[in-house]
């Protein structure tokens, strides 16, 4: 019991410190609000995305190790299976850092982390996980355009990346492409967690997804895809829908976002 209390205090301490640093957005990029048509969930209509700040890089192993050190309940062997499955931090040889491959991986995106772990990390930075719409919106950008969804070269590069198996060692986060907003590696590094990864009424049987099964799901919107030729988006949505909150996957990392100044959350 005493240990639990102690742990609790530790967490409190960490997060307090993180909060104090909240106003330095050196590693954040500004994403201007706008509208776009997501592949799923909006019935083919454009949705609007409020402006937000996004981490320039996915969270690295080194950054995550620092978090774990301060929050021991997220250590590799301490974590509850409810919150992260057996492959949690599988690529770490040590309980609280990368271990053996530190020279190769410290600056690479952390993977094998669950939704709960990613969420806890962001919250302790005074941030949060991006929503699907925020993530997809930011990922539309190529090096030069905010919306490169009609750019054949950009599309093919994304498709190529999504077709390749994982490299043995993921490259450092700075080495991937920098998009229009100054955000690195949205495509080409790892898949990334989103806060509402489970918000699409998709089932594992993808061919049945074009019509909503009223028995399985209750909902107003059609679930059909808005653009059946957008294979790269299909792959992202398919990937997300294969996940559960405690899953950890060898090419699934995350980055955090932050609301812009006026934090008033409109409740209906």
């Amino acid at each position, binding site marked *: 019991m005493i240990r639990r209390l102690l742990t609790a205090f530790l967490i409190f301490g960490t997060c307090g410190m993180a909060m104090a640093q909240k106003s330095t957005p050196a590693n954040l990029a500004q994403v201007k609000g706008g509208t776009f048509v997501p592949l799923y969930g909006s019935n083919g209509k454009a949705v609007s995305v409020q402006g937000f700040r996004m981490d320039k890089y996915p969270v690295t192993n080194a950054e995550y190790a620092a978090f774990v050190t301060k929050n021991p309940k997220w250590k590799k062997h301490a974590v509850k299976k409810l919150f992260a499955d057996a492959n949690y931090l599988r690529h770490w040889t040590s309980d609280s850092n990368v271990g053996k491959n530190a020279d190769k991986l410290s600056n690479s995106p952390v993977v094998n982390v669950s939704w709960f772990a990613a969420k806890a990390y962001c919250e302790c930075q005074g941030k949060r996980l991006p929503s699907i719409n925020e993530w997809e919106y930011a990922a539309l950008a190529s090096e030069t355009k905010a919306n490169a969804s009609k750019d054949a070269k950009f599309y093919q590069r994304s498709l190529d990346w999504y077709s390749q198996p994982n490299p043995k060692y993921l490259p450092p986060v700075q080495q991937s492409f920098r998009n229009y907003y100054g955000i690195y590696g949205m495509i080409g590094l790892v898949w990334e967690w989103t806060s509402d990864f*489970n918000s699409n009424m998709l089932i594992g049987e993808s061919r049945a997804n074009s019509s909503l099964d009223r028995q399985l*799901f*209750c909902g107003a919107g059609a679930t059909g895809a808005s653009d059946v030729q957008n294979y790269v988006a299909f792959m992202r949505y398919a990937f997300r829908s294969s996940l559960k909150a405690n899953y950890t996957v060898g090419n699934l990392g995350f980055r955090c976002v932050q609301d812009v100044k006026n934090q008033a959350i409109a409740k209906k």
Partner: protein
Amino acid sequence: MNTMRKYTTATLLLLAIVLGACQGEQSIIKATESATLAPTTGSTEISEMSLYNLDSDWQNQNSETLKLQYLQGKVQLVAMIYTSCGYACPRIVADLIRIEASLKEVKREDVGIVLVTMDPAWDTPEKLSAFAKENNLDPDRYKLLTSKQENIQELAALLNMKYKMSPDGEIAHSNIISVLNAKGEIIHQQEGLGADPNETVNAIKGLLHKI
């Protein structure tokens, strides 16, 4: 022993409030003045896969604050609803009542039913209470819970629920009834409306047999 535990629970609760700050200042729990419910059973050991590992605070239809761990010690059926829902939620409740009907020979206190709202902004404890009365839900058996949006999101994720709030107030969601054992682990899930409840009933009976 008993007082000791109560004391600890209170401390933990206090800490949890502070911990909430990790997620931003706005997350102070308001229900401090109302009654707090402590877990009913002896064991404070929570197993690895128990949903009761969630440390968040919830309110029931009587505005009492509780941890999910309070549900520990008996088999629980869990479903997510929102009371302004016109189609699936009444059906989900109907399915639960159907399952209940097949559990006549089971001791009433052995099985609880938990309805969790997906729409905390609308579903206040008062609304939940009214919903329970409208549907003649036995307050001894049915607990209707609400919490902060992010706590609900976490629970939903653990229940393998898919759900999405639309701007118009409707919520698209999957229809799942989960069976939790006394420790709070998911033992069975019935997906889809109007499903044959036999498997679920058997799962419940199997659990009670083991107790």
